[in-house]
C-alpha cells in the first residue's frame, strides 16, 4: 500500500462520516405541531385539511387549517397560491416550521387517492 492510497482511504472515510452526520443533522422528521413548536426546527407534518370554508386565498398567500395526527388543529401559512390537487388530497404533508407563533409551510405535498385503485370507479 502506498501512502497516497492510505491517505485517500482515510479521506474517503472522513467524507462518509461527515456526510452521515450532516445527513442526520439535516434530516427532518415526520412530526406534529406541538413537537414542531418545541423544537423550532423544520419538520414534515402529515395531516388533514379541516375547516375548508375559512381558508384564505390570494396570489401570495394560502391560509388554511390542518389537523395533525394528534388531532391538533393549526392555522398554516403558505406563501404561494393554493397548490394543485388540494381539494382532492386525502392527506397532505406540510414541510415547514414555526416562525414565532405561526406555522409557515415552505412546501406542501398532496397525496391523492389513486386514480384507479378503487373498484367503485365511475366508468361512464
Amino acid at each position, binding site marked *: *500500500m*502506498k501512502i*497516497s492510497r492510505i491517505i*485517500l482511504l482515510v479521506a*474517503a472515510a472522513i*467524507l*462518509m462520516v*461527515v*456526510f452521515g*452526520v*450532516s*445527513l442526520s*443533522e*439535516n*434530516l*427532518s*422528521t*415526520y412530526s406534529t405541531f406541538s413537537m414542531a413548536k418545541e*423544537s*423550532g*426546527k*423544520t*419538520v*414534515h407534518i*402529515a395531516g388533514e385539511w379541516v375547516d375548508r370554508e375559512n381558508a384564505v386565498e*390570494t*396570489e*401570495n398567500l394560502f391560509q388554511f387549517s390542518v389537523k395533525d395526527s394528534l388531532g391538533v388543529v393549526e392555522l398554516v401559512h403558505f*406563501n*404561494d*397560491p393554493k*397548490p*394543485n*390537487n*388540494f*381539494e*382532492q388530497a386525502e392527506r397532505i*404533508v406540510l*414541510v*415547514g*416550521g414555526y416562525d414565532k407563533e405561526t406555522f409557515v409551510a*415552505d*412546501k406542501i*405535498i398532496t*397525496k*391523492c387517492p*389513486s*386514480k*384507479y*385503485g378503487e*373498484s*367503485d*370507479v365511475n*366508468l*361512464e
Partner: protein
Amino acid sequence: MGNFFASLAFASAFVSMVSLFLAEREQGKEKKSWERLGFASFGIHALSIVGIIGTLFYLIYTHQYQFHYVWSHSSNELPVHYMISCFWEGQEGSFLLWCFWHAVLGVILMRTVKSEWRGLVLGVLASIEVVLSSMVLGIYVGESWVYGIYLTLGLIPAAYFAFRYIKQRDQLPWKGSFPLAGIFVTAMMLVLLFRGQDGMGDPWSWADTISSFDGFAFGLAIIGLLGFAFLYLRYAVAVSNNISKHIPDLLAGASVLGIAYAVMNFDLSTWKVGSSPFLLLKEAFPDNPVYANDPDFIPTNGSGLNSLLQNYWMVIHPPTLFLGFASTVVPFAFVIAGLIKGKYREWIRPATPWMLFSVMILGIGIIMGGYWAYETLNFGGYWNWDPVENGSLVPWLCGIAGLHGMLIHKKTKSYLKLSMILVISTFWLVLYSTFLTRSGILGDTSVHTFTDLGLSGQLILLMAIYGTVTLILMVLRWKAIPSKIDDSKIWTAEFFLFMGILIFIFAGLIIAISTSLPVFNKIFGTSMAPPAEVQLFYYKWNVWFAVGFGIFSGIAQFLWWSKAKKKTPAQALYRPFLLAMLLGSTILVLLITARKDFAFDKDFASLIADSEFASNFLGKALAYIEFGVMSIADELLLFSALFVIFANGDILFSLLKKNTTGLKVMGGTVTHIGFGLMLLGILFSSGYDEVISINLTPEEMQGFSSDEEKIDNVGILKNKPRLIKGYEVTYTGPKEAVAPIRKLHVIEETPEFFKVRFRDSTNDEFGFVLPRPVFLVKEEGESEKSEGDIHPTSNASDGELEGEIDMQYVEDFLNKNLPFIKPPHINNRMLYGLEFRSLKDSSDHFKLYPEAEINEQMNGLIAHPARKVYLDRDIYVHVSQVPANEGEEPKYKFHELALKPGDTTFVGNTKIYFHNIANLNQRAEEVDKNFEVALAAHLLAIAGQDTFFANPMYFIARDNTFSMKEATIEELYLDFVFYKVDPQKGLFHFQIRELENPTSDYIAFKAIKKPYINLLWLGTFILTFGFLLAIYRRSKES
C-alpha cells in the same frame, strides 16, 4: 392475441437463456447447435415483443375501451402522437418499452459481437428478458395450468441437480447430504399441496403463515430449504476452482432456492406474476355496478392521458431514457460473460463502446426529462432532486465512474476489479431505481404519485437474483481476477482519473442514500423524512463534487495528453489555470458590482441562525464550518468549470493541429468541454436565477414593504399594466387554446353513430361521436330550411338509416359547438396573453402565452410555463392563479353622459370620443319601412395605446315604441347604452356601465429570470457530440 405474444415472449426468452448457457458448456458442433437454438429463440422473443407492442398500440389506436389499459390511459380526444406517449404512461407499457430495447440491442449484438462473446452475452440478456417479460404476463400463479408450468420450471432444475449428484456422487465432497435434499423436496411438495388450496391473508406476513394450519408443512419446508442451502453452499465452495463447468449447476441450485423461497412465502392462488396490459376493464373492476346492469358494457371514452404528459418531449423522452436503462445491460452482460469464461481483461475492449453509448443515451434521457419538466411543469426549473430524477442520475454517475475505470484499465492494467464492480452496480442500480419508482415505496417523499401494481415483489426478486448471482460469481472469482496495484505517482493522469472516479462514486452514493430513506424507513420501521431544504442539501454536497470534477478532469486530461509531449505539469497547466482565474475573477467582479448575491447565500445565513438548534457540539461546529466553506463554493465551482473548459480547449486545439490523429481521439476532450459548459449553465441558471415578478407598481407598494415576506406572484388585471423587475407587464386577456376545426374525417361508422376526428388550429386532434341519422344528406324535396341545430330526420322513425353523411353540415355543427363538445380537459385550456416591455430598452418587448388549464380530473390548476429565450437568459413565466369559475355578482358603476358629436370625456382612465351619428334610415329601405328614427352613435374609447369602437343604437318604431341596442367593449368592461336624443340642445344621451369587479379578468403569474441556461443545453449537445466521437473510435478498436 396480446397475451399469446406475452407468453411466447416469456417462454422463448427462457428457452434462449437455457440453451445459450448450456452451449457454453459444450464444444464444437454441440455448442453450435445449442447456440443456434438460443439465437433462434431470441429472435422469436424479439418478434413477440414487437407483437405485443403492435397489438397494444392497435388497441389504443382503435379506442378499444373494453381493455383496462386503454381505458385508463387513452381517450377519444387524444392525438396520435400522444397515443404513443400514453402507450408508456402505464407501468406495463414502460416495461414493454424496456423489453423492446433489450430485444433490439440483443439483435444488434447477435450481428456485431464476435462469436467468442456472442453466446454468453446474449444469454445474460435473455435471462433478464425472462424476468422482464414476466412483468407483463399478468397470470395468477395459483391458476391450475400455470401451476403445471410452474412445477415443471421448479422441478427441472431440481431434477437436473439431483441427476448430477447421482452421477458424480463419488467425486464430490458432499456425500451424505442427500437425505436433506430429500426432506426438502418432500416438504416443498407438501407446501405446494396445501398452499394451492386456500387463499390466506397477507402473503408477506410470517405470523399469518405460521399460525395457519399448514404450519407443519411450512416448518418442514424451512428445514428442507436450510438443508438445501447448506448443500448448495458446500457444493459451490467445492467447485469454486473450476467454476465454468459448474455454472449451470449453480444456476439451477440458485433457481431452486429462489423458487422454493417464493413457494413458501407467497400465497400462490393470489400471487400474480406481472400485470398484463391486456386485462379487460371488466376483469379489473368486476364489482362495478355497471356490469350488473349490462355485462357487455364498453365505455365510449377513456379516462384520458395525464395532461402533463401531453407534451412532445414525453413522446421521445421515455424511449431515450429506457434505451439508456436498457443499454446498461450490455456492459453488464460482458462482465458476467468475462467472469464465467475466466477472460477477465478481454471483455473490456468490446464493452467500451457500449458503455459509452449507454452513458450517453442515459445522459441525454435525463436532460430531456429535465427539459420536459422545465417546459411543462411549473416548479420553475429543470431539476428538482425528486427521487425519480435521482433514480436515473445515480446509475449515470456510477456508469461514468465505471467507464473511466475501464479507460484506466486499458492504459495501466490496474483497477480491473473496481471497473467490474462499477459496471455491475450500474446495471443493478437501474433495477433498484425501477423498484423505487414503481413500488410506491417513495410515498410521502415524492411529488409523483405511484401506485403499486403488485410488481414490487417481483422487482425485489429480480434485484435479489442479480445481486446474489453476481455477488457469488465475483466472490468465487475474486482471487482469479488479475489485479495490479496502481503504483503510479501522484502527477499522473491515472491518479487524477482515479480521483475523478471516486468523486462520481461518492456523489452517487450520497444521492442514493438520501433518496433511499423511505426504503430504510420501511425496513427499520423508522420515520426519517428527507431534509427539508432538499435543494440546498443536495447542492451543498454536490457542488464539491462538481468542483472536484472540474479540477481533476482538467488536470487528468492534460496529463493524459501531455505525457506524450514530455511537458511538466506546471508548464502544461499554467495557461488554462491563468485563463480560468482571469475570466472567473472578472465574472465575480461583475457580479459583485451588479450586487448579485449568490442565491443560496441567504439560505446559509438562515442555516447559521438555525444552527443554535443543532443538538450536539459536532453539529454546531459543522454548521459553522459549513457556512464558512460554502460561502466560497460557488466561486470555486465557477473557477473549476472554466478550468476544465480551458484545459480541454487547449488540448483540443493542440490535437487539431495534428489533424490526422487529432480528430479521431478528441472525443474525450470534447465531452469534457461539454460537461464543463453544462456545469456553468447549471451554476448560473440555478444559482443566480431571480424571481422578477415582484410588484413594483408605485401606487400599490404600500403594505408590501416588509422584505421578509415572500411575494413571488403578481396579480394583474386585464389591460392594467404592472411594473415588475425590469419589465412592464400588461395582461391582454385569455385566449382559448382551441380554434376552428380542420382535417375533419370519419373514422368509424355504425348505423346509429359515427365517430369523427379533427384538428383545431393548434393542431391538437380530437374525436367526437355523433348520432348518424341527424347528419345524413337530406334528400330532395325535404324542407331545406329548418331552424335550430339539428336536421329533421323524417326517415329515422322508420328505422331507415341509409344514406351519406353530410360532411359540410358536420363541420358547421362542430365549428359552432366546439366550445361545448370539447372534452373538459381541453375545454379548460386557456392561453393567457402577457405583454412584456423592458424598462431599459424600449425595443425589447415580447408577448408570452403561458397556458393553464382547470383540470377536472386533478381538480386543480395545471399551469404550463411559457418562455422568452434570449441568448444569455430565459424569462420563464407561468400563471399561478386564474379566475375562478363561479364569480361573484357583477357590480357596475354608471356614468351618464350627454354629448355632442366631437366631444371628448373621460370614464375612469378611458378617454371617450363621440365621433358622430349615423342615420340608419338612409342606409336601408327595410329599416326605413319599420322605423321612424334609427340612429347609430359612433364612439371611440381610447385606453392606453389601444382604441376601441362602440356603436350603440337608438330606434323609434313606426308605432312609436322605442328600443335600444347596446354596444359592449369587452376589453374595457364598458357597456354603452344610447337612450335619449335631445334635438333642441343637439345632445345625445348615453349611459355607460363600467364593470367594477371584473374578476374574470384577473390572473396571477410568476416570472423567473434564468441566466445562461442556454449553456446547459449547448453543453449537452457538445457532450453528446464528444460521446459520439468516442464511440466511433472505440468501436473501431474493438
